[in-house]
Every structure is written in structure tokens, then in C-alpha cells.
């Protein structure tokens, strides 16, 4: 490798290539998580296709660098580095969308069977912190989806989205940990409500009977 080639690598290719590599490692890990969290165990081929497109752009860079079939063109290399980054980014975003959507769904499914009274008594954090945050997360996800379409990919944006998904994962674990206490309280509440209804029926019957007797006595 001569000095010109080394200079091209060090200044024009390596910094972005390193960023793409690091992003790819994260995206790959998230794809595995997404496939595991998917209840139907389905893969997303469009995400895999984004990674294939990444490879195509990387190969374009290398053909230019090695001057195979073409001359070295720094603008061409720069453009393809951006495109390669964009495809890994897109694969990552689509994957995080799946994880976020499923986690929201799982949290909702776990929480839905319980009354608001149970949630307030056993899991006050749900209405106080988690639910408002879930609403905010919904808006953030919608916002992130728009940003993705605008096409301004950056590692910072991606990291921000990962943090949101991490928060969702934390909430889901919190909900699962509270599940047994929620079930216990809900059953206790139902029993109490059942007893209350029986007592109310007995009292109502007694009052009705009392007035019936009273009416009968007045009549006679």
C-alpha cells in the first residue's frame, strides 16, 4: 500500500467505516432480539434486504479503492459510505419499531385484566410514571418514524431510539414482577365485592320484609 492509498483509507474511508461497523454490531444484536420477541417467530426480510444493500454499497467503495473496473473517486466513496450507513440505519430503525411495538403490546396485555383500583393500590407507579411515559414514548416513536423518512441518519438519533426501547423493556420487566401481587389483590378485591353484594342483598331483603310486615300490620 502506497502513501496515497493509506491516506485515502485513513482520512476518507476508515472514520465512517468504523461508524458503520459499530452501528452494524448494534443493529445485528437488535435484529436477534426482535426475532426472539416476535410471538409468531417471524423474520423481517425487508430488514435483511437493507443489510444486503449495505454490502452492495460497501463493495462499491472497495471496487473504487482497489481500482477494480474504475478509478478511485473520493466523491463516489463518500456517497456510498453515506448510503451504506443509511441502509444499516434503516434496518436498525425498522427493527426497533418492531421491538417497541411488541413491548407496548405486551405491557398492555399484561395490565389490561386488572381494574384501575388494583393498579392504583398495588402498582401506583403505573398511572403515575409508566402510563404517561408510555404515551410520551408513542409520540416519540411516531416522531422517530418521521425523522427516519426525512433521511437524516445519525448515530445519535439511533442511540436515542435504543434508549426509548430500553425504557420500554424496563417497564415490561417491572410489570411482570408485579404480576403476582396484582393477581392476588384483584382476587381479594373480587371476593370483597362479592361479599359486599351479598350483604347488600340481605339488607335490601330485610328492609323489604320489614316494610311488608309493617304494611300488613297497618292494614289489619
Amino acid at each position: 500500500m502506497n502513501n496515497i492509498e493509506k491516506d485515502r483509507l485513513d482520512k476518507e474511508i476508515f472514520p465512517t467505516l468504523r461508524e458503520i461497523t459499530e452501528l452494524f454490531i448494534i443493529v445485528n444484536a437488535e435484529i436477534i432480539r426482535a426475532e426472539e420477541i416476535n410471538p409468531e417467530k417471524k423474520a423481517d426480510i425487508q430488514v435483511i434486504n437493507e443489510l444486503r444493500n449495505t454490502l452492495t454499497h460497501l463493495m462499491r467503495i472497495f471496487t473504487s479503492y482497489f481500482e477494480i473496473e474504475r478509478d478511485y473517486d473520493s466523491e463516489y466513496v463518500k456517497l456510498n459510505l453515506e448510503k451504506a450507513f443509511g441502509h444499516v440505519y434503516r434496518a436498525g430503525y425498522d427493527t426497533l419499531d418492531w421491538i417497541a411495538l411488541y413491548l407496548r403490546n405486551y405491557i398492555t396485555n399484561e395490565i389490561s385484566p386488572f381494574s384501575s383500583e388494583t393498579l392504583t393500590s398495588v402498582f401506583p407507579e403505573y398511572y403515575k410514571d409508566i402510563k404517561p411515559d408510555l404515551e410520551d414514548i408513542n409520540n416519540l416513536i411516531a416522531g422517530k418514524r418521521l425523522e427516519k423518512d426525512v433521511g437524516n441518519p445519525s448515530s445519535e438519533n439511533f442511540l436515542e431510539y435504543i434508549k426509548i426501547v430500553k425504557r420500554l423493556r424496563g417497564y415490561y420487566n417491572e410489570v411482570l414482577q408485579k404480576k403476582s401481587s396484582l393477581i392476588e389483590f384483584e382476587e381479594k378485591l373480587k371476593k370483597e365485592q362479592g361479599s359486599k353484594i351479598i350483604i347488600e342483598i340481605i339488607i335490601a331483603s330485610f328492609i323489604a320484609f320489614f316494610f311488608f310486615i309493617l304494611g300488613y300490620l297497618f292494614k289489619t
Partner: protein
Amino acid sequence: MSILEDYKKEIGDRIVGDVLDRPCSKPKIDEEVRDTTIQRGSRYRGSVRITHGLFYTDKERQEKKEELLKVKPP
């Protein structure tokens, strides 16, 4: 002789123009693709999920995302 030179010598007509610069395609994935994938799955090494047809078609992908987006926590 490099593999590319060798290839061009033997089957060179396949590399016409800038093949590598052709636009990246987005494959259409539907039920037909799933059926074909399952039918031919045993001939290829690859993802177990995909060879068993465990992947979203474009329609399913869209519908599933819309369905999940509608979910509202209590």
C-alpha cells in the same frame, strides 16, 4: 490471474456495464414467495425461519404494524 479476470475471460458477457452500480432493489414478498421458499427450502442452507416460511409478507408486515400501532395501554 485474479478470479475477476478469469471470470471475465470465461463468462465476461455477464459483466456488462456497471452491474454493481445498479439500484438496490426492494423485493416483493407475498404468499407466492412464501410457498416457493418452503417448497425449495430443503435445497438451501440458510435461515431456518425463512426456509420454514416464518417471515412477513409485505401485506402482513404493513397490517401487523398498523394493528400494533393502534394498541392503547389502559
